[in-house]
Protein backbone atom coordinates (compact mmCIF):
# COMPACT_ATOMS: atom_id res chain seq x y z
CA UNK A 1 0.00 0.00 0.00
CA UNK A 2 1.29 3.48 -0.87
CA UNK A 3 2.15 5.70 2.10
CA UNK A 4 -0.13 8.65 2.87
CA UNK A 5 0.99 11.73 4.75
CA UNK A 6 -0.74 14.67 6.38
CA UNK A 7 0.88 17.82 5.03
CA UNK A 8 -1.25 20.72 6.22
CA UNK A 9 -4.21 21.74 8.35
CA UNK A 10 -6.44 24.65 9.26
CA UNK A 11 -9.16 25.08 11.84
CA UNK A 12 -11.62 27.56 13.27
CA UNK A 13 -12.49 28.23 16.88
CA UNK A 14 -15.43 26.11 18.11
CA UNK A 15 -18.21 28.48 19.16
CA UNK A 16 -21.94 28.80 19.77
CA UNK A 17 -22.17 31.32 16.92
CA UNK A 18 -24.83 31.11 14.25
CA UNK A 19 -22.75 30.71 11.08
CA UNK A 20 -23.70 29.31 7.69
CA UNK A 21 -22.23 25.87 7.04
CA UNK A 22 -20.65 27.16 3.83
CA UNK A 23 -18.90 29.94 5.78
CA UNK A 24 -17.52 27.51 8.36
CA UNK A 25 -16.18 25.25 5.60
CA UNK A 26 -14.67 28.18 3.76
CA UNK A 27 -13.14 29.59 6.92
CA UNK A 28 -11.20 26.48 7.97
CA UNK A 29 -10.12 25.68 4.40
CA UNK A 30 -8.97 29.25 3.85
CA UNK A 31 -6.98 28.97 7.08
CA UNK A 32 -5.28 25.85 5.70
CA UNK A 33 -4.18 27.61 2.50
CA UNK A 34 -3.20 30.82 4.28
CA UNK A 35 -0.87 29.04 6.71
CA UNK A 36 0.58 26.66 4.09
CA UNK A 37 1.52 28.99 1.26
CA UNK A 38 3.78 26.34 -0.33
CA UNK A 39 0.72 24.31 -1.30
CA UNK A 40 -0.35 24.62 -4.95
CA UNK A 41 -4.10 24.28 -4.55
CA UNK A 42 -4.51 23.45 -8.24
CA UNK A 43 -2.87 20.07 -7.60
CA UNK A 44 -5.69 18.97 -5.30
CA UNK A 45 -7.38 15.94 -6.90
CA UNK A 46 -10.22 15.44 -4.44
CA UNK A 47 -12.27 17.53 -2.03
CA UNK A 48 -14.18 15.63 0.66
CA UNK A 49 -16.60 17.41 2.98
CA UNK A 50 -17.41 15.82 6.33
CA UNK A 51 -20.72 16.99 7.74
CA UNK A 52 -24.19 16.01 8.94
CA UNK A 53 -25.63 19.27 7.63
CA UNK A 54 -28.58 18.97 5.29
CA UNK A 55 -27.20 21.45 2.74
CA UNK A 56 -26.48 19.87 -0.60
CA UNK A 57 -23.43 19.69 -2.91
CA UNK A 58 -21.11 21.14 -0.28
CA UNK A 59 -17.86 19.76 -1.70
CA UNK A 60 -18.50 21.38 -5.08
CA UNK A 61 -19.52 24.59 -3.31
CA UNK A 62 -16.35 24.56 -1.20
CA UNK A 63 -14.22 23.87 -4.29
CA UNK A 64 -15.76 26.84 -6.07
CA UNK A 65 -15.32 29.11 -3.05
CA UNK A 66 -11.59 28.33 -2.77
CA UNK A 67 -11.11 28.46 -6.54
CA UNK A 68 -10.28 24.87 -7.46
CA UNK A 69 -11.66 22.28 -9.87
CA UNK A 70 -10.91 18.85 -8.37
CA UNK A 71 -11.52 15.55 -10.15
CA UNK A 72 -13.37 14.09 -7.18
CA UNK A 73 -15.74 16.01 -4.90
CA UNK A 74 -18.36 14.65 -2.53
CA UNK A 75 -19.65 14.73 1.03
CA UNK A 76 -19.33 12.04 3.69
CA UNK A 77 -21.76 11.57 6.57
CA UNK A 78 -21.45 9.03 9.37
CA UNK A 79 -22.78 10.98 12.37
CA UNK A 80 -20.03 11.73 14.90
CA UNK A 81 -17.21 9.88 13.13
CA UNK A 82 -17.78 11.51 9.75
CA UNK A 83 -14.41 13.27 10.15
CA UNK A 84 -12.17 10.22 10.48
CA UNK A 85 -14.31 8.36 7.94
CA UNK A 86 -13.50 11.14 5.49
CA UNK A 87 -9.80 10.87 6.30
CA UNK A 88 -9.99 7.11 5.65
CA UNK A 89 -11.64 7.81 2.28
CA UNK A 90 -8.93 10.34 1.45
CA UNK A 91 -6.29 7.75 2.43
CA UNK A 92 -7.95 5.19 0.13
CA UNK A 93 -8.06 7.55 -2.84
CA UNK A 94 -4.36 8.28 -2.42
CA UNK A 95 -3.10 4.78 -1.62
CA UNK A 96 -5.04 3.39 -4.61
CA UNK A 97 -3.43 5.95 -6.90
CA UNK A 98 -6.72 7.64 -7.83
CA UNK A 99 -5.52 10.88 -6.24
CA UNK A 100 -2.23 12.44 -5.17
CA UNK A 101 -3.54 15.21 -2.95
CA UNK A 102 -6.88 15.25 -1.10
CA UNK A 103 -8.47 18.03 0.92
CA UNK A 104 -10.77 16.99 3.77
CA UNK A 105 -12.87 19.74 5.36
CA UNK A 106 -15.23 18.96 8.22
CA UNK A 107 -17.83 21.39 9.48
CA UNK A 108 -20.97 21.51 11.56
CA UNK A 109 -23.43 24.01 13.00
CA UNK A 110 -24.54 23.98 16.65
CA UNK A 111 -28.00 22.84 15.52
CA UNK A 112 -26.79 19.81 13.53
CA UNK A 113 -29.44 17.25 12.54
CA UNK A 114 -26.79 14.60 13.28
CA UNK A 115 -27.42 14.86 17.01
CA UNK A 116 -30.52 12.65 16.84
CA UNK A 117 -30.64 9.35 14.93
CA UNK A 118 -34.31 9.44 13.92
CA UNK A 119 -34.20 5.95 12.42
CA UNK A 120 -33.45 4.26 15.75
CA UNK A 121 -37.03 3.57 16.84
CA UNK A 122 -35.89 0.88 19.26
CA UNK A 123 -35.00 3.77 21.55
CA UNK A 124 -38.72 4.65 21.73
CA UNK A 125 -39.18 8.24 22.84
CA UNK A 126 -35.64 8.27 24.29
CA UNK A 127 -33.76 9.18 21.12
CA UNK A 128 -31.55 11.95 22.46
CA UNK A 129 -27.94 10.79 23.14
CA UNK A 130 -28.29 11.68 26.85
CA UNK A 131 -30.38 8.53 27.26
CA UNK A 132 -27.82 6.05 25.93
CA UNK A 133 -25.14 7.95 27.85
CA UNK A 134 -27.19 7.56 31.04
CA UNK A 135 -27.60 3.84 30.45
CA UNK A 136 -23.86 3.43 29.76
CA UNK A 137 -23.02 5.45 32.89
CA UNK A 138 -25.39 3.49 35.11
CA UNK A 139 -24.15 0.17 33.77
CA UNK A 140 -20.46 1.10 33.92
CA UNK A 141 -20.68 2.51 37.46
CA UNK A 142 -22.48 -0.58 38.71
CA UNK A 143 -20.26 -3.10 36.94
CA UNK A 144 -16.96 -1.65 38.11
CA UNK A 145 -18.00 0.02 41.37
CA UNK A 146 -17.30 3.51 40.04
CA UNK A 147 -18.90 6.56 41.67
CA UNK A 148 -20.31 9.74 40.11
CA UNK A 149 -17.39 11.58 41.71
CA UNK A 150 -14.98 9.30 39.87
CA UNK A 151 -16.61 9.87 36.48
CA UNK A 152 -16.72 13.63 37.08
CA UNK A 153 -12.91 13.68 36.93
CA UNK A 154 -13.10 13.11 33.15
CA UNK A 155 -14.95 16.40 32.74
CA UNK A 156 -12.69 18.24 35.22
CA UNK A 157 -9.57 17.00 33.39
CA UNK A 158 -10.81 17.76 29.90
CA UNK A 159 -12.12 21.24 30.71
CA UNK A 160 -8.76 21.93 32.38
CA UNK A 161 -6.84 20.79 29.30
CA UNK A 162 -9.12 22.81 27.00
CA UNK A 163 -7.97 26.02 28.70
CA UNK A 164 -4.66 25.57 26.86
CA UNK A 165 -6.45 25.29 23.52
CA UNK A 166 -7.58 28.71 22.25
CA UNK A 167 -9.98 27.07 19.77
CA UNK A 168 -11.89 25.18 22.47
CA UNK A 169 -15.47 26.08 23.36
CA UNK A 170 -14.81 25.76 27.10
CA UNK A 171 -13.34 28.87 28.70
CA UNK A 172 -13.58 27.69 32.33
CA UNK A 173 -12.21 25.08 34.67
CA UNK A 174 -14.54 23.12 36.94
CA UNK A 175 -14.20 21.13 40.14
CA UNK A 176 -15.70 17.70 40.83
CA UNK A 177 -18.33 19.49 42.93
CA UNK A 178 -19.16 21.80 40.00
CA UNK A 179 -19.75 18.76 37.79
CA UNK A 180 -21.90 17.02 40.40
CA UNK A 181 -23.88 20.22 41.04
CA UNK A 182 -24.42 20.99 37.35
CA UNK A 183 -27.89 20.51 35.91
CA UNK A 184 -29.16 16.97 36.42
CA UNK A 185 -30.25 15.73 32.99
CA UNK A 186 -31.08 12.26 34.29
CA UNK A 187 -30.38 10.30 37.45
CA UNK A 188 -27.03 9.24 35.94
CA UNK A 189 -25.93 12.24 33.87
CA UNK A 190 -25.11 15.89 34.64
CA UNK A 191 -24.78 18.70 32.11
CA UNK A 192 -21.01 18.92 32.65
CA UNK A 193 -20.68 15.20 31.83
CA UNK A 194 -21.67 16.06 28.25
CA UNK A 195 -19.81 17.39 25.23
CA UNK A 196 -21.75 20.33 23.82
CA UNK A 197 -22.99 20.83 20.26
CA UNK A 198 -21.33 23.84 18.64
CA UNK A 199 -20.30 25.38 15.33
CA UNK A 200 -16.82 24.74 14.01
CA UNK A 201 -14.66 23.55 11.17
CA UNK A 202 -11.37 21.73 10.60
CA UNK A 203 -9.46 21.05 7.39
CA UNK A 204 -6.64 18.70 6.63
CA UNK A 205 -4.58 18.03 3.51
CA UNK A 206 -3.35 14.51 2.71
CA UNK A 207 -0.85 13.53 0.03
CA UNK A 208 1.03 10.61 -1.47
CA UNK A 209 4.55 9.90 -0.17
CA UNK A 210 6.21 11.66 -3.07
CA UNK A 211 3.94 14.71 -2.87
CA UNK A 212 4.17 14.84 0.93
CA UNK A 213 7.94 15.12 0.81
CA UNK A 214 7.72 17.88 -1.80
CA UNK A 215 5.20 19.89 0.21
CA UNK A 216 6.66 19.68 3.72
CA UNK A 217 9.76 18.69 5.68
CA UNK A 218 7.68 17.16 8.42
CA UNK A 219 4.80 15.09 7.05
CA UNK A 220 2.90 12.97 9.57
CA UNK A 221 2.17 9.48 8.24
CA UNK A 222 -1.06 7.59 8.72
CA UNK A 223 0.40 4.18 9.57
CA UNK A 224 -2.70 2.43 10.90
CA UNK A 225 -6.43 2.46 10.19
CA UNK A 226 -9.10 0.37 11.89
CA UNK A 227 -12.85 0.59 11.58
CA UNK A 228 -15.79 -1.44 12.83
CA UNK A 229 -19.56 -1.09 12.67
CA UNK A 230 -21.49 -3.44 14.95
CA UNK A 231 -24.97 -1.97 14.32
CA UNK A 232 -26.82 1.29 13.86
CA UNK A 233 -29.24 0.93 16.75
CA UNK A 234 -28.15 1.56 20.34
CA UNK A 235 -30.05 -1.41 21.78
CA UNK A 236 -28.04 -3.84 19.63
CA UNK A 237 -25.00 -3.12 21.85
CA UNK A 238 -24.63 -6.42 23.69
CA UNK A 239 -22.61 -4.91 26.49
CA UNK A 240 -23.63 -1.60 28.01
CA UNK A 241 -20.33 -1.10 29.86
CA UNK A 242 -17.79 -1.74 27.08
CA UNK A 243 -17.20 -0.64 23.48
CA UNK A 244 -17.03 -3.59 21.11
CA UNK A 245 -16.59 -1.58 17.90
CA UNK A 246 -13.74 0.42 19.45
CA UNK A 247 -11.97 -2.76 20.55
CA UNK A 248 -12.06 -4.16 17.00
CA UNK A 249 -11.11 -0.87 15.33
CA UNK A 250 -8.21 -0.34 17.76
CA UNK A 251 -6.83 -3.83 17.24
CA UNK A 252 -6.96 -3.46 13.43
CA UNK A 253 -5.30 -0.04 13.47
CA UNK A 254 -2.45 -1.14 15.75
CA UNK A 255 -1.92 -4.32 13.72
CA UNK A 256 -1.68 -2.33 10.49
CA UNK A 257 0.79 0.08 12.10
CA UNK A 258 2.73 -2.82 13.62
CA UNK A 259 2.55 -1.15 17.02
CA UNK A 260 1.21 -2.09 20.41
CA UNK A 261 -0.78 0.24 22.61
CA UNK A 262 2.11 0.81 25.03
CA UNK A 263 3.99 2.51 22.18
CA UNK A 264 1.28 5.17 21.77
CA UNK A 265 2.47 8.43 23.34
CA UNK A 266 -0.59 10.62 22.83
CA UNK A 267 -4.26 9.97 21.99
CA UNK A 268 -7.43 11.82 21.17
CA UNK A 269 -10.36 9.85 22.62
CA UNK A 270 -14.05 10.33 21.75
CA UNK A 271 -15.34 11.53 25.15
CA UNK A 272 -18.84 12.45 23.97
CA UNK A 273 -19.83 11.92 27.63
CA UNK A 274 -17.65 11.37 30.72
CA UNK A 275 -18.21 7.62 30.78
CA UNK A 276 -17.00 7.25 27.19
CA UNK A 277 -13.40 8.09 28.09
CA UNK A 278 -12.73 5.18 30.49
CA UNK A 279 -14.76 2.82 28.30
CA UNK A 280 -12.71 3.77 25.22
CA UNK A 281 -9.38 3.59 27.07
CA UNK A 282 -10.27 0.07 28.18
CA UNK A 283 -11.45 -1.01 24.72
CA UNK A 284 -8.22 0.29 23.17
CA UNK A 285 -6.07 -1.45 25.79
CA UNK A 286 -4.64 1.64 27.48
CA UNK A 287 -5.90 0.11 30.71
CA UNK A 288 -7.39 -3.17 31.88
CA UNK A 289 -11.17 -3.64 31.85
CA UNK A 290 -12.76 -1.61 34.64
CA UNK A 291 -9.54 0.32 35.36
CA UNK A 292 -9.87 3.21 32.91
CA UNK A 293 -10.68 5.68 35.70
CA UNK A 294 -7.46 4.80 37.56
CA UNK A 295 -5.46 5.88 34.52
CA UNK A 296 -7.53 9.05 34.05
CA UNK A 297 -7.12 10.02 37.73
CA UNK A 298 -3.39 9.44 37.57
CA UNK A 299 -3.03 11.55 34.42
CA UNK A 300 -5.15 14.32 35.95
CA UNK A 301 -3.25 14.36 39.24
CA UNK A 302 0.13 14.51 37.50
CA UNK A 303 -1.10 17.08 34.95
CA UNK A 304 -0.18 14.69 32.15
CA UNK A 305 -1.93 15.65 28.89
CA UNK A 306 -1.42 12.27 27.17
CA UNK A 307 -5.16 11.65 26.72
CA UNK A 308 -7.15 14.38 24.98
CA UNK A 309 -4.56 17.17 25.09
CA UNK A 310 -6.82 19.57 23.14
CA UNK A 311 -9.52 19.09 25.81
CA UNK A 312 -11.49 16.27 24.23
CA UNK A 313 -15.04 16.68 23.01
CA UNK A 314 -16.10 17.75 26.51
CA UNK A 315 -13.63 20.64 26.56
CA UNK A 316 -13.53 21.57 22.88
CA UNK A 317 -17.20 21.17 22.02
CA UNK A 318 -18.45 18.67 19.47
CA UNK A 319 -19.22 19.99 15.98
CA UNK A 320 -19.86 16.47 14.68
CA UNK A 321 -18.42 16.62 11.16
CA UNK A 322 -15.37 18.60 12.30
CA UNK A 323 -14.55 16.57 15.42
CA UNK A 324 -12.59 13.68 13.87
CA UNK A 325 -10.61 16.09 11.69
CA UNK A 326 -9.86 18.34 14.66
CA UNK A 327 -8.76 15.33 16.75
CA UNK A 328 -6.40 14.30 13.93
CA UNK A 329 -4.98 17.82 13.66
CA UNK A 330 -4.20 17.75 17.39
CA UNK A 331 -2.19 14.55 17.01
CA UNK A 332 -0.37 16.03 13.98
CA UNK A 333 0.53 19.10 16.05
CA UNK A 334 1.71 16.98 18.96
CA UNK A 335 3.93 14.85 16.69
CA UNK A 336 5.29 17.99 15.01
CA UNK A 337 6.02 19.52 18.43
CA UNK A 338 3.85 22.52 17.63
CA UNK A 339 1.11 22.16 20.23
CA UNK A 340 2.33 25.21 22.18
CA UNK A 341 1.67 25.14 25.91
CA UNK A 342 -0.10 21.77 25.79
CA UNK A 343 2.81 20.03 24.02
CA UNK A 344 3.76 16.57 25.31
CA UNK A 345 7.42 15.63 25.52
CA UNK A 346 8.70 14.13 22.25
CA UNK A 347 5.74 11.98 21.20
CA UNK A 348 6.54 9.60 18.33
CA UNK A 349 3.25 7.72 17.91
CA UNK A 350 -0.27 9.12 18.24
CA UNK A 351 -3.76 7.65 18.07
CA UNK A 352 -7.19 9.05 17.17
CA UNK A 353 -10.41 7.39 18.37
CA UNK A 354 -13.64 8.69 16.86
CA UNK A 355 -17.03 6.93 17.20
CA UNK A 356 -20.72 7.30 16.45
CA UNK A 357 -24.09 6.64 18.05
CA UNK A 358 -23.27 4.93 21.35
CA UNK A 359 -20.16 3.26 19.94
CA UNK A 360 -22.13 1.34 17.33
CA UNK A 361 -19.26 2.27 15.00
CA UNK A 362 -15.68 3.34 15.62
CA UNK A 363 -12.71 4.53 13.62
CA UNK A 364 -9.15 4.45 14.96
CA UNK A 365 -6.12 6.02 13.26
CA UNK A 366 -2.46 5.59 14.17
CA UNK A 367 -0.21 8.50 13.21
CA UNK A 368 3.59 8.64 13.20
CA UNK A 369 6.39 11.03 12.39
Amino acid sequence: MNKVGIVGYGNTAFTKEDQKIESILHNCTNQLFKTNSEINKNLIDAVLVSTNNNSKYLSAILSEMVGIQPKIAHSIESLCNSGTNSIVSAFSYISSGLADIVLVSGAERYDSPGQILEWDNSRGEFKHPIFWASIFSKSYKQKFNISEEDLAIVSVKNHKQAQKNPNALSKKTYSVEDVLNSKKLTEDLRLLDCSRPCSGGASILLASEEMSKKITDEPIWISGIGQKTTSAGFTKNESLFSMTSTKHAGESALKMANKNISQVDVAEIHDAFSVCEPMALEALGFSKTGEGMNLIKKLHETNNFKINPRGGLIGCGHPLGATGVSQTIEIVKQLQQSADNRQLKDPEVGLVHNMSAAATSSTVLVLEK
Partner: protein
Amino acid sequence: MNFEDELTRGNFTIPECTSCKKIIWPPSEFCDVCYNETCLKSGQFSGKIIEYSKQNDEYFCVVEFLDTFRLIAKMKEKPENGQIVKILKCGILNGTYFFQII
Protein backbone atom coordinates in the same frame (compact mmCIF):
# COMPACT_ATOMS: atom_id res chain seq x y z
CA MET B 1 -50.76 -4.75 8.08
CA ASN B 2 -47.18 -3.91 8.87
CA PHE B 3 -45.53 -3.36 12.24
CA GLU B 4 -46.12 0.40 12.23
CA ASP B 5 -49.82 0.02 11.34
CA GLU B 6 -50.23 -2.29 14.33
CA LEU B 7 -48.18 -0.03 16.58
CA THR B 8 -50.32 2.98 15.57
CA ARG B 9 -53.30 1.00 16.86
CA GLY B 10 -51.49 0.36 20.14
CA ASN B 11 -50.62 -3.25 19.33
CA PHE B 12 -47.09 -4.52 19.99
CA THR B 13 -46.25 -7.25 17.49
CA ILE B 14 -43.03 -9.05 16.69
CA PRO B 15 -41.90 -9.68 13.10
CA GLU B 16 -40.88 -13.25 12.36
CA CYS B 17 -39.62 -14.81 9.13
CA THR B 18 -42.33 -16.88 7.43
CA SER B 19 -39.72 -19.37 6.28
CA CYS B 20 -36.87 -19.77 8.83
CA LYS B 21 -38.82 -18.30 11.80
CA LYS B 22 -36.05 -15.89 12.79
CA ILE B 23 -37.27 -12.86 14.76
CA ILE B 24 -36.39 -9.72 12.84
CA TRP B 25 -35.64 -6.56 14.84
CA PRO B 26 -35.81 -3.69 14.13
CA PRO B 27 -39.04 -4.54 12.30
CA SER B 28 -38.55 -5.24 8.62
CA GLU B 29 -40.46 -6.79 5.74
CA PHE B 30 -37.64 -9.17 4.97
CA CYS B 31 -35.57 -11.76 6.82
CA ASP B 32 -31.86 -10.91 6.95
CA VAL B 33 -30.90 -14.59 6.85
CA CYS B 34 -33.03 -16.22 4.13
CA TYR B 35 -34.47 -13.02 2.56
CA ASN B 36 -38.04 -14.27 2.68
CA GLU B 37 -40.93 -12.15 3.89
CA THR B 38 -41.78 -11.65 7.54
CA CYS B 39 -45.13 -11.89 9.30
CA LEU B 40 -46.22 -10.40 12.62
CA LYS B 41 -46.61 -12.45 15.79
CA SER B 42 -49.17 -11.11 18.26
CA GLY B 43 -49.41 -11.85 21.95
CA GLN B 44 -48.57 -10.65 25.45
CA PHE B 45 -44.80 -10.92 25.27
CA SER B 46 -42.69 -10.85 28.41
CA GLY B 47 -39.55 -8.77 28.54
CA LYS B 48 -36.63 -8.63 30.95
CA ILE B 49 -35.13 -5.38 32.25
CA ILE B 50 -31.44 -5.24 31.37
CA GLU B 51 -30.62 -1.74 32.62
CA TYR B 52 -32.43 1.48 33.51
CA SER B 53 -32.03 5.08 34.55
CA LYS B 54 -34.46 7.83 35.54
CA GLN B 55 -35.48 11.25 34.26
CA ASN B 56 -37.77 13.35 36.43
CA ASP B 57 -40.41 10.93 37.74
CA GLU B 58 -40.09 8.33 35.01
CA TYR B 59 -37.73 5.43 34.55
CA PHE B 60 -36.43 4.51 31.12
CA CYS B 61 -35.40 0.91 30.74
CA VAL B 62 -33.56 -1.27 28.24
CA VAL B 63 -35.89 -4.26 27.94
CA GLU B 64 -35.06 -7.54 26.22
CA PHE B 65 -37.76 -9.64 24.56
CA LEU B 66 -37.56 -13.35 23.74
CA ASP B 67 -33.83 -13.30 24.61
CA THR B 68 -33.43 -11.75 21.16
CA PHE B 69 -33.94 -8.01 20.86
CA ARG B 70 -34.07 -4.92 23.03
CA LEU B 71 -35.90 -1.60 23.12
CA ILE B 72 -36.16 1.34 25.50
CA ALA B 73 -39.45 1.65 27.34
CA LYS B 74 -40.67 3.86 30.15
CA MET B 75 -41.89 2.65 33.50
CA LYS B 76 -43.61 4.46 36.38
CA GLU B 77 -42.57 2.13 39.22
CA LYS B 78 -38.94 1.61 40.22
CA PRO B 79 -37.56 -1.23 38.09
CA GLU B 80 -34.95 -3.81 38.96
CA ASN B 81 -32.45 -5.39 36.63
CA GLY B 82 -33.69 -8.85 35.65
CA GLN B 83 -37.33 -7.95 36.41
CA ILE B 84 -39.90 -9.53 34.05
CA VAL B 85 -42.25 -6.95 32.53
CA LYS B 86 -44.99 -6.60 29.92
CA ILE B 87 -45.91 -3.86 27.47
CA LEU B 88 -48.64 -1.75 29.05
CA LYS B 89 -49.02 0.83 26.29
CA CYS B 90 -47.35 1.48 22.98
CA GLY B 91 -47.92 3.53 19.88
CA ILE B 92 -46.62 6.27 17.64
CA LEU B 93 -46.96 9.88 18.74
CA ASN B 94 -45.94 12.65 16.31
CA GLY B 95 -43.91 10.13 14.36
CA THR B 96 -42.05 8.83 17.43
CA TYR B 97 -42.50 5.30 18.77
CA PHE B 98 -43.26 4.93 22.48
CA PHE B 99 -43.38 1.90 24.72
CA GLN B 100 -44.52 1.74 28.36
CA ILE B 101 -43.98 -1.33 30.49
CA ILE B 102 -45.40 -2.61 33.75
